[in-house]
């Protein structure tokens, strides 16, 4: 109770990293990154393989020590008071890390016991998780004999055994079939709705759209941070809109236009300050100038495009 109440009083931040750095010899895997993950947020850490995502995650879970800087989870310094932090964190490592020679049920039970659950509480919790993640009928199967998707479900169930407030998932959908990946994200959204803060890494850009906020990592640094929309805006320097019209129109005369990406006679791809505000003004102005607007709409930009732009800039 006491512990629970203390958590309620914690500051808004679930994770706070400051100047977090990890060096392996001369190689700098993570280079002075700052991160702030708010409570209840679904936060995505994005980047190509080798960007330093796993190293960052491992410093947050405390399984490796930072060379410089610190990480606080719910206000507790992980390097200094790791044991206190552990009960708030549920962790699903990138590689399947459960015991392949124990059964599904034995794995969850073991972790329940290691987390300090006993008796009927333990039994109920194990049963609940087995059912929730569709593992009940496989509970007596050795973990090593499970398919990839089932292994991931087991890993997720195990990470949740002590009902942690922060769920850290390192590439949870790597190697999982696309339909199953969607199913996983449904689980994550559900857990997020239940009030759990989620920190998830992925290199699938389409998945990252599901996150409340993102940080893009490349070569050990965070090169962009914000909501998916903010990140895309920042990559282009604004929103992308498409205008199709009849007649003559000088794009630079339109309000809010920052640059012209494409100019193919009666179709423009423009970058504007804010698509929501600027589009109606553009239509109005264009008509004042005598052109007939056929289409005026925001264009969907993929995160991937945004990311590639950022990577280009950072190099």
């Amino acid at each position, binding site marked *: *109770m006491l*512990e*629970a109440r203390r958590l309620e009083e914690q500051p808004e931040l679930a994770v706070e990293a400051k100047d977090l750095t990890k060096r392996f010899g001369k190689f700098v895997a993570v280079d002075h990154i700052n991160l702030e993950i708010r409570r209840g947020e679904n936060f995505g850490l994005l980047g190509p393989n080798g960007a330093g995502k796993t190293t960052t995650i*491992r410093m947050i*879970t405390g*399984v*490796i*020590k930072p060379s410089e800087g610190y990480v606080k989870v719910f206000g507790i310094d992980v390097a200094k008071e*790791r*044991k206190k932090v*552990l*009960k708030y*964190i549920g*962790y699903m*490592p990138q*590689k*399947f*890390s*459960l*015991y*392949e*020679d*124990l059964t599904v049920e*034995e794995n969850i039970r*073991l*972790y329940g*016991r*290691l*987390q*300090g*659950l*006993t008796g009927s*509480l333990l039994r109920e*919790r194990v049963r609940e998780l087995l059912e929730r993640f569709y593992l009940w009928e496989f509970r007596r199967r*050795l973990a090593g004999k499970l398919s990839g998707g089932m292994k991931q479900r087991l890993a997720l169930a*195990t990470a949740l055994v*002590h*009902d942690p*407030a922060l769920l850290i998932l390192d590439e949870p959908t790597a190697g999982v079939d696309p339909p199953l990946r969607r199913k996983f994200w449904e689980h994550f959204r559900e857990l997020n709705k239940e009030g759990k803060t989620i920190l998830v890494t992925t290199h699938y850009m389409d998945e990252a759209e599901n996150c409340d906020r993102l940080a893009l990592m490349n070569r050990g640094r965070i090169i962009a941070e914000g909501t998916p929309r903010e990140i895309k805006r920042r990559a282009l320097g604004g929103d992308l809109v498409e205008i199709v019209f009849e007649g003559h129109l000088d794009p630079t005369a339109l309000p809010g236009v920052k640059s012209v990406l494409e100019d193919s006679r009666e179709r423009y791809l423009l970058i504007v300050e804010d698509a929501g505000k600027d589009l109606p003004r553009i239509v109005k102005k264009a008509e004042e100038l005598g052109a007939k607007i056929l289409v005026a709409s925001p264009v969907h930009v993929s995160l991937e495009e945004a990311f590639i732009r950022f990577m280009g800039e950072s190099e």
Partner: protein
Amino acid sequence: MIELEEGIRKGLRIIPIVDKEIRQLVRDPKTILMVLLMPITVTILFGYGYGGKGVGKYPITVVDLDGGDGAFKFIQELRNSKMFQIKAIYKSKGQGFSSVYSGKVYASLVIPETFTEDLMEGRPTRVELYYDASNPSVAQMIMQAVGVVTQQFQEWAASRFGTFAITPMFYTVYGPKIKKIESFIPTLMAMILQMVPTSLISVSICREREKGTFEQFIMTPVSVFDIIFGKLTAYFFATISDATLSLFTAVLLFDVKLKGTFLDMTIVSTVFLLNSLSLGLLISVFSKNQLQAYQASIFSFIIFMLFSGVFIPVDVLSTEAKMIASFVPMYYFVTAFRNVSLKGWSYLMVLDQLAVISMFTFAFLALSLRFLRMEVT
């Protein structure tokens, strides 16, 4: 959330770890085979290779140059000790020597001319043992046994003729090739109690690191203490059978006659088994992978064997080698187990050795606790 928080227990997490380790061990058929079959196999190989069924006594000859009552009484005392089978009593040293040279017996005991006379007058005297040094462990057994008999005889004589001393003198002779399995029981036990447990447990932590399970494991509130003692306990239960198995195999198959009680031998074996497991854990803490751990445990095993006195008695080694031997727990075990199993001593009489072995155990565990990193690499 609150409901769970209330139910969460603090404190040690050893029992779930023991449970887990034993389940994992039992599910690995290769491990079971190694734990159960290796002691039996080694015992059988030793049994057949080193003489099979024996009479349970060391054959020796006696050269009685004295011919008096004192000598007669001493010979009787040798017989009573049940450690010797006196093949012949000669009247000349030459006959005695040749009985050792020819390989008929391990040793020849010479009682000097003035033995009875010295005895009656309370003068210091001696007996001379000419033994086959080609088989050091047997030779050592005989020397110890002669020492014991002399001691007993001296006490008896002192009560009748007053205080004096009988010094056993030892001389080496090279000769026979006969060996007996009893004298190899301590060696056998040392091997079995060292090799299987150490190599088995030595991979336990680095396997977790290698397979990645350690990363999940240390996300729970387990402590270094829980891990070390959880694994130690589990592997102890798994390997304690080894000691019993090999003893029973030796007794049943080769008719080995051990003087020690089962309890005494079990106590001494247990103390050493805990040492072997602690050493294995220490190796596991420092090894990068399973292969390295295996190599380290085999390497330490070889060193232990060389300096434990099972091949060459430590007494006859160089000063440097003696120094090394004093850091080898197996040396203390072999000494203690030899006394308990072959001489029928109680474990209380080998407490010194047990204390030294336990000190090493303590040191290995302390180092493991100190250097086990709750981190991944």
